[in-house]
């Protein structure tokens, strides 16, 4: 096992990794920007190194400074968390050159899954179902020909895509022509890569993803699914484990597909295979694979009784997976609400300021992953995620009731948060019946949640 791990991240996920390291007896090094000096992960780590000023480009994405920090502190591994450097193949290669273990998959796996068009081709080759679409990147004529043959609407996607950038839905050929160029331009400016492909668009699909875990000895397992259909502009708001709509047989089927997807890229570590799931036809369609630990990993941890971050560290150190597929038992139901520093009443604009009073509820079945303290400053430089509130129950109803009381008890004053929006969602009849799909929030809360002004 490692002696010392450097955490190349901030906020709640940095603290989450530090907690796992502490429980495994691993020393920790926090890196931080100069405005994060007083934050909880920096204080909780055994050592800390300030690597740059507030802007991420100069601190949390500053590879030379981070590597020097690792060398000076004699860390033997780097955990990237999510975001920042977690899916940068070049960073993985540089770590290897410096003799540092990157806690995550290989540079090749990251590169393959990062190129959505390449990933799609690899999945097709390995028998993983994908949404019908153009076989490869397409020009506007090929896209239109596909639409005319298979029907609209179509989803226009950027090959280098991610985070909803370069994505458009076209309902007919003329809209396709207009939006194709828009998407290509947006992809060009966001990723420096204007390649586009198109797929059929399912308006009422669910977002269901499978957690996979792989070691260096060829063992790959899945840990069931998460239902993340409650989203706003491709940003997940509420995540649940398990999904209400999967039968045990469908879970097995999806899990098997996810394991195949991981094997197709010689995956190692924790990963997530995302699908669109069509409830009517009960079909999974591969969306993408995220080659890192995900924000919503705790719901899986609660239901499967496994610590995914510890498992990540163990397999990165060369150990075998601590459990086999048959040992994975899903028990109960877990729900996560992402509490963001945003103003739900003002088109989810970021909210910044100082937190005066902070109270995170406890009690049975409650978990809060956060990095806040009273007096914490919420700065405009970083992601708006403040806390992940996870409620666990014997079944969905108990988890929901628990989440309602947790949000009622929670106090975060001094800034605006999305807690009120979550609380309203928890009484929404469609949500309670589980009748949700990826465009649910936009259609249900049109006007409040759908658009920024300006």
């Amino acid at each position, binding site marked *: 096992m490692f002696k010392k791990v450097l955490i190349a991240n901030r906020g709640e996920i940095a603290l989450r990794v530090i907690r796992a390291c502490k429980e495994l007896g691993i020393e920790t090094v926090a890196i931080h920007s*100069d*405005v994060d000096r007083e934050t909880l992960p920096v204080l909780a780590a055994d050592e800390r*190194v*300030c*690597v*740059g*000023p*507030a*802007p991420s*480009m*100069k*601190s949390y994405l500053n590879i*030379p*400074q981070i*590597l*020097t*920090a690792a*060398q*000076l502190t004699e860390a033997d591994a780097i955990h990237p968390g999510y975001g920042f450097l977690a899916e940068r193949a070049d960073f993985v290669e540089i770590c290897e050159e*410096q003799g540092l273990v990157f806690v995550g998959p290989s540079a090749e796996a990251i590169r393959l899954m990062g190129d959505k068009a390449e990933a799609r081709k690899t999945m097709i080759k390995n028998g993983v179902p994908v949404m019908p679409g153009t076989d490869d990147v397409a020009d506007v004529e090929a896209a239109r020909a596909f639409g005319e043959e298979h029907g609209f609407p179509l989803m226009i996607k950027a090959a280098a895509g991610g985070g909803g950038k370069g994505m458009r839905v076209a309902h007919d050929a003329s809209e396709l022509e207009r939006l194709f160029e828009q998407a290509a331009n947006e992809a060009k*400016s966001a990723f420096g890569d204007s390649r586009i492909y198109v797929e059929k668009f399912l308006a009422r699909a669910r977002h269901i993803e499978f957690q996979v875990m792989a070691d260096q000895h060829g063992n790959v397992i899945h840990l069931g699914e998460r239902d993340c259909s409650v989203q706003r502009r491709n940003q997940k708001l509420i995540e649940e484990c398990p999904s209400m709509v999967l039968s045990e047989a469908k879970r097995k089927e999806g899990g098997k597909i996810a394991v195949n997807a991981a094997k197709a890229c010689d995956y190692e570590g924790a990963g997530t295979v995302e699908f669109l799931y069509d409830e009517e036809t009960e079909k999974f369609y591969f969306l993408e694979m995220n080659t890192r630990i995900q924000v919503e990993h705790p719901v899986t941890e609660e239901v499967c009784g496994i610590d995914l971050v510890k498992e990540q560290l163990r397999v990165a150190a060369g150990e075998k997976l601590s459990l086999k597929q048959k040992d994975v038992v899903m028990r109960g139901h877990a729900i996560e609400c992402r509490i963001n520093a945003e103003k739900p009443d003002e088109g989810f604009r970021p909210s*910044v300021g*100082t937190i005066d009073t902070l109270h995170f509820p406890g009690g049975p079945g409650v978990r809060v992953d956060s990095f806040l303290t009273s007096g914490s*400053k919420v*700065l*405009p*430089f970083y992601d708006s995620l403040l806390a992940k509130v996870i409620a666990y129950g014997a079944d969905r109803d108990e988890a929901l009731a628990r989440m309602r009381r947790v949000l009622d008890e929670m106090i975060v004053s001094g800034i605006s948060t999305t807690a009120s929006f979550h609380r309203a969602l928890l009484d929404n009849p469609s949500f309670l019946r589980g009748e949700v799909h990826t465009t649910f929030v936009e259609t249900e809360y049109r006007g409040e949640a759908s658009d*920024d002004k*300006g």
Partner: protein
Amino acid sequence: MENVEQELDWVERLAQTMTENKLHKLEFETENVSLTLRSKQAAPAPPPPPPAASSSAPEEDVEGSDVILFCSKDVGIFRVAEDLSPGTVITEGQKVGTVEAVSVEHDLIADCSGVLVEMVVQDGDPVEYGQPLLVISESEN
């Protein structure tokens, strides 16, 4: 940024963040925007909490305000220039040492002229971003 009003609102928030964190200088950079804000007080002086409107107040001659802290901009091993010791006269633009990082050496170039009062760290010490390295007195030159 969607319009001027929002931009101003945003810059105001940055300025507020700066005051609250007692920052001397704040650089912000995205694809389209590059912004540097500097507060008027010198870094080592205790930051009086001026309300936003009092920025026109004359700079007070706070004791110690002529003392400059020369800080590291990099993570690495500090190497002091050979001929440097307390009392040495430093000229702006002079190389006062290096910070050795992985596969690169960053030169430390004095950004003011003065007299070296104190070396805060020793040759061979590991240093981080923003760490004070040298105390330079500007008034004695």
